[in-house]
């Protein structure tokens, strides 16, 4: 019954998008629009080495020659790429040495978001509570990274990618763009040209990262695109669990978020990447909201490596996102657990790709979609088996739940098997919320909304269980909030 109590508590807290506030932080912008000079401006601002600038400019050239993809089952007003700001940074002294030097307005933002940036606060918490190192990215720059020293003792590098480019240029150069090449797709090319910050993680061989690492993205400035780049390298035999959260203010306009996440897992390494995506989804009429066009890919380069993606997608007006695994190393494995909740006028086209190249590689996909209101949700996934990949195993399960008469839910799985020893299984179901169950729960004294939240939480349980503890709680609350007003 604990779950029921929790759900009731959650529902009691129901609010509309509660992260929709704006903060008045003094910021500096790059001029509006995109051209080679803006790319140079960003690179210079970051004090990047020459090769990085060239890399960016090459990406920009490629982007110019590419066309925006239209195959996803989403419709949106075209983005005017020349009308955006590509760089917005809170004004501050160069590199704050401690939290005291960070603009209190920004600290206030993260406080409101419930993100612990003060290490001592975390330490003073409940004994035994898990500690999380946070990299807080505010618009285009990382404002603070916590626990750096303690992590450094373990040999773990966790810092803004802009800093890593200065401090570990060779490491970054070796891996950047090796999983998601510059010309991979339209949004990845754009990101490669203009990304301004993001996190860089390196876990040395045999090290189990002593705490969860987390990045918290916040878009604050208006008419600004956020382009962050995350690069995680798990060296041989290492382990890391990484969390990502995101929010944005409520604005009438659509804002663009085009991120790239690259993960490299070497022999026996394991990476667990969890996302709770809660960008502003737009208002009840579908006005405003974030366009979330993200490329996330993991390269299981080493034998027996493992990467697990878990995502809870509740925000954004439009989502276009397919966290994928390239299973190159023999016996490597990939997992994808997803909850996509759409309400109002939201549209989500999300799924995964499992590319089996190595022998005895395994993958598992569990995707749960809940559509309500006038929203549309699509699961799109690919499982492919290379001719040389013997002994491949895949299991895929996609379940969709429809709430209301005006939403849509679609399942588009691709299987491409080119090896006789592969064993691939896929199953999908689409149903609506059961009237009987709703009636039963209401009969027991729950209101309609409480009953919906309870049933939906049950529906997505398989995936919630994969989330780290502190995220699971947040995600469960989100499920309820996202579906507010969806019934009756």
């Amino acid at each position, binding site marked *: 019954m604990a779950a029921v109590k929790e759900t009731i508590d959650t529902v009691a807290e129901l609010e509309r998008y509660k992260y929709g506030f704006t903060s008045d932080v003094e910021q500096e912008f790059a001029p509006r629009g995109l051209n080679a000079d803006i790319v140079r401006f960003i690179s210079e601002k970051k004090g990047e080495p020459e090769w990085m600038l060239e890399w960016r400019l090459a990406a920009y050239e490629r982007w110019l020659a590419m066309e925006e993809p239209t195959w996803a089952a989403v419709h949106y007003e075209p983005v005017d790429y020349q009308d955006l700001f590509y760089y917005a940074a809170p004004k501050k002294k160069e590199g704050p040495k401690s939290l005291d030097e960070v603009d209190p307005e920004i600290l206030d933002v993260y406080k409101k978001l419930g993100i612990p940036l003060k290490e001592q606060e975390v330490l003073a918490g409940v004994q035994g509570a898990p500690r999380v190192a946070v990299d807080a990215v505010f618009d285009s720059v990382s404002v603070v990274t916590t626990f750096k020293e303690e992590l450094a003792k373990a040999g773990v590098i966790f810092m803004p990618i802009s800093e890593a480019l200065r401090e570990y240029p060779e490491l970054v150069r070796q891996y950047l763009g090796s999983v998601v090449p510059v010309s991979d797709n339209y949004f990845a090319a754009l990101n490669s040209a203009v990304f301004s910050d993001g996190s860089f993680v390196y876990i040395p061989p045999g090290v189990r990262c002593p705490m969860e690492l987390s990045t918290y993205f916040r878009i604050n400035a208006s008419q600004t695109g956020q382009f962050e780049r995350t690069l995680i390298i798990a060296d041989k035999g290492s382990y890391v669990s990484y969390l990502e959260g995101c929010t944005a203010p409520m604005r009438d306009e659509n804002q663009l978020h085009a991120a790239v996440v690259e993960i490299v897992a070497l022999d026996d390494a394991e990476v667990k990447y969890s996302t709770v995506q809660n960008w502003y989804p737009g208002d009840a009429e579908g006005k405003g909201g974030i366009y979330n066009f993200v490329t996330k890919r993991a390269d299981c380069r080493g034998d027996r490596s493992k990467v697990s993606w878990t995502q809870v997608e509740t925000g954004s007006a439009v989502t276009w996102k397919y966290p994928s695994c390239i299973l190159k190393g023999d016996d490597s494995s990939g997992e994808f657990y997803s909850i996509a909740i759409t309400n109002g006028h939201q549209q989500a086209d999300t799924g995964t790709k499992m590319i089996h190249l190595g022998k005895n590689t395994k993958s598992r996909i569990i995707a749960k979609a809940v559509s309500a209101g006038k929203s549309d949700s699509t699961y799109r996934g690919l499982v492919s088996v290379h001719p040389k990949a013997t002994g491949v195993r895949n299991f895929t399960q996609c379940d969709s739940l429809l709430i209301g*008469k005006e939403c849509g839910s679609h399942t*588009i799985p691709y299987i*491409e098997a080119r*090896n006789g020893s592969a064993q691939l299984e*896929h199953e999908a*179901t689409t149903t609506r919320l059961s009237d009987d169950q709703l009636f039963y729960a209401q009969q027991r004294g729950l209101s309609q909304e409480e009953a919906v939240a309870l049933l939906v939480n049950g529906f997505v349980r398989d995936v919630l269980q994969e989330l780290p503890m502190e995220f699971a709680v947040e995600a469960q609350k989100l499920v309820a909030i996202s579906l507010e007003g969806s019934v009756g």
Partner: protein
Amino acid sequence: MSATFAIDLTDASTFPSRRDEAWKYSDLKRYLREAPAPSGTATVGAPGPFYDLGGEAVVFANGRAVGVTDFIASGEQTLRLRYISDAVGTGHTASARVAARAGAKLLLLETHEGAGSAYVAHNTLELDVAAGAEVTRVVLVEEPEDAISVSEAHVKVEAGGVYRQTVIATGARLQRIETRISHFAQGAQVQADGLYLLNGSRHADLTSVVRHMEHDGATSQLIKGVARDTARGVFQGKIVVERGADGTDARMGHHALIASERAEIDAKPELIIYADDVQCAHGNTVGALDESALFYMQQRGVPAEEARALLTQAFLIEVIDRIEHEGAREVAREWLTARL
């Protein structure tokens, strides 16, 4: 993405390629760069596999109608629809129209009988199933390994109509059998089965789109396939439930065996759903023959090759068993067994 392609064999610009999502796995343009020269005449020789079941016949020889091209069934009738190809390197197009009047019961026995080599055949069938009518369509496709063929069927099922189809394909250089079925009015029932058995470097593509436009329709689909040697089996099945088509019950299953190291299976089962009071599901599996069953049979003295053949037959025959008409089922069973 879901647009039908108006393929015109005389105009190469109408040939879809893998860049067109619906033809991703069957790149017609790659195999057919130019419009083929028109085929000459062909003679109708053998009586065709369904001859013994009697009934009327609509026959096309290299695209030319031998007699009528349209058929309207009333009462209980059997129609043998035969597409005969006997050409070398040339192309031909045939279009037939078949309708079952309200309350009629039609057994439609369709055969694609190919001889010669490297021909290109394009067949279209328009089939209307009126209210309360019942149509069972069984399709046997046998063509030379270097032929190219595209067959399209557009089926419209009215209120309370029943439409069942079973397609049995053996592949060709590129063989596409596409069926588009609309639940045009409420309470229609559709069964859209098929199987493919592919040897050598043959390619078969079973594509279907079932559109539920009105409420309380039911669709059941079972597709099974075996790809041997370097063959390639493709299944693309889409079930669309339009807004308002509540009470829809749709189930789709595709199960394929890859029987060699270098064979390939590509599958894309899609559910596109805009109504909430529905029950929809699909299952899709790809794998090899069960090693433990093979071992068991060998242990009991069945040679490996024979055991393999028996298990393959048992796997595929499930589709044949679902053919309701006994006569058609037995012909299909024999036809398939002879090709195992």
